[in-house]
């Protein structure tokens, strides 16, 4: 395979004395769609801002197409960024917002008009060209922000939480649209999100970050089915994640026997709420919460392991809050988290 398109090489970012991102390394291929996933404060937005050039690197390098751009100012990088707030220029019409970058670049008027028109039609906003941004809905404003970036034909487009300000119906539409634009234009896209559903549904690859470092890089399937660390497991929906020591689970009140032989080289075990049977098994807990979800009932249990979440089909016998109940954490339903 050829040189990676974007490469972060030991990139370290800091605000004053506090290190936000510590020696980050990852690569992106041309035309790839990558999600930077993590909780707020994990350094994902900081990383994105530094790739755009809005934040100086403390040390390390950023390479775009083999060229070191670490010291290149933001306005010379040719990287697009769609802000979470859209950051449209309130004093300009939709058309002038999209034309802004081309005007700066001194693009001839006829070419400018053509490119603005094609960018607006790519996001389906031709008929809104003369509106003011404030007269558009959130979803439309975001499409303007997108058009304003893609009209510059950037090689890399960064998106900050592209779906988080949209309601559920618009999210699905925007998701489809982003995927289509990405396919048609072949632009590499890196987007930042705290929502695992968003990351899994859209990305070719997902980079999970925590505490300024990468926890795992993989395809959505890798991340969802084979989380590499207790953090990733928890973040991706394995709410019952425990570290292990020999055949014992490390509970909040001390070690608890698993009741089976734990495979060698295991660091932890993780179960989704769906994989926790109630009414049978070696563990005991007390129901402290039950919430009816239609298809199923979600239970919160208090046990020597700490809090355990179980989701059972609504047809199963119910357990009332306050009752003691046995539960199982079987090896068959567990994801094994290997030693690093």
């Amino acid at each position, binding site marked *: 395979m050829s040189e990676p398109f974007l490469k972060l090489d030991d990139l370290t970012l800091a605000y004053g004395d506090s290190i936000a991102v510590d020696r980050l390394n990852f690569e992106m291929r041309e035309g790839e769609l990558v999600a930077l996933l993590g909780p707020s404060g994990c350094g994902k937005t900081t990383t994105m801002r530094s790739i*755009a*050039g*809005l934040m100086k690197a403390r040390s390390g390098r950023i390479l775009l197409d083999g060229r070191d751009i670490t010291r290149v100012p*933001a*306005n*010379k*990088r040719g*990287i*697009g*960024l769609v*802000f979470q*707030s859209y*950051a*449209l*220029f*309130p*004093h300009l019409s939709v058309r002038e917002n999209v034309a*802004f*970058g081309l005007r*700066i*670049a001194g693009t001839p008027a006829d070419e400018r008009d053509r490119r603005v028109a094609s960018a607006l039609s790519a996001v389906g906003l031709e008929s809104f060209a003369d509106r003011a941004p404030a007269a558009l809905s959130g979803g439309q404003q975001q499409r303007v*922000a997108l058009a*304003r970036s893609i009209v*510059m034909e950037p090689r890399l487009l960064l998106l900050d939480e592209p779906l988080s300000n949209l309601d559920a119906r618009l999210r699905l539409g925007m998701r489809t649209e982003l995927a289509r634009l990405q396919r048609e234009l072949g632009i590499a896209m890196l987007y930042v999100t705290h929502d695992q559903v968003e990351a899994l549904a859209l990305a070719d690859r997902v980079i999970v970050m925590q505490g300024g470092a990468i926890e795992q890089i993989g395809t959505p399937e890798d991340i969802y089915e084979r989380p590499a660390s207790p953090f990733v497991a928890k973040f991706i929906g394995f709410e019952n994640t425990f570290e292990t020591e020999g055949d014992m689970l490390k509970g909040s009140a001390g070690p608890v026997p698993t009741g089976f032989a734990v495979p060698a080289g295991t660091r932890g075990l993780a179960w989704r709420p769906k994989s926790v049977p109630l009414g049978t098994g070696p563990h005991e807990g007390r129901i402290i919460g039950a919430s009816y979800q239609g298809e199923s009932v979600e239970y919160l249990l208090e046990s020597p392991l700490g809090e355990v979440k179980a989701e059972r089909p609504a047809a199963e016998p119910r357990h009332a809050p306050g009752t003691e109940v046995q539960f199982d954490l079987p090896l068959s339903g567990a994801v094994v988290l290997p030693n690093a």
Partner: protein
Amino acid sequence: MKLAGHLFLAAVMLFLIGPFVIICFAGLSAGESLAFPPEGLSLRWVIRVFEIESFRSSFALSLALGIGATLFALILGIPAAYALARYDVPGGEAIRNVLTAPIIVPGIIVGLALLRHLVIPSGLGVRLALFLAHSALLIPYAVRVVSASLENLRPDIEEAAILLGTSRIGAFLRVTLPNIRNGIMAAFIIGFITSFNEVPASLFLTGPGVATLPVDMLLYMEFNFDPSIAALSGLLALMSLTVVLVAERLLGLSHYV
């Protein structure tokens, strides 16, 4: 109860607007002395105002001072407001407080201090002293009004402009400035009117043949008691009112104050 409320409201309105009405009528008097009700109506004193040489020169001074000092205050105040709004300036809160101090300190103290410790020891010209004093008094208004409009503007639009290829300065000029233009105009109008009506500090900063219009009016009244002073007051009030009304119509001035 409701009637009492309306009466109270009417009394307050009368108290606020009454003097203005009295002055206007007194200025339209046909008589020789300042009196209300006027002895007949005429425009003779309104015309007379324009013939008094000292009013003409002090009006010119006040006009130049109002425009010049407000512009200077804006030149210093816009960057200050920008820095306070966008950056984590060390001691920002202290700077903000110092910048609002001239509003709190009585103008008469400012004027006396300037005269005693700046104008007299340095031999500074009266016009320059007036310009400096008014600029200093106006900076708080400039900073406050421009700050208010900067706070309504998302800072990330400048970053968006930079990523579209422009420089930092370019982003400020192309994106920030057009969006705070109304705030700057509002600050200019408020500054100009404040300067034009300023008396306490300007009172100390006079010289032979040099006084701002309101001070000149006070001096005139010591020796003359004809209705021209009322006519001039009415004209000035109308001028201020017109400026504020036009500004309110065009810019929505009341958002910024």
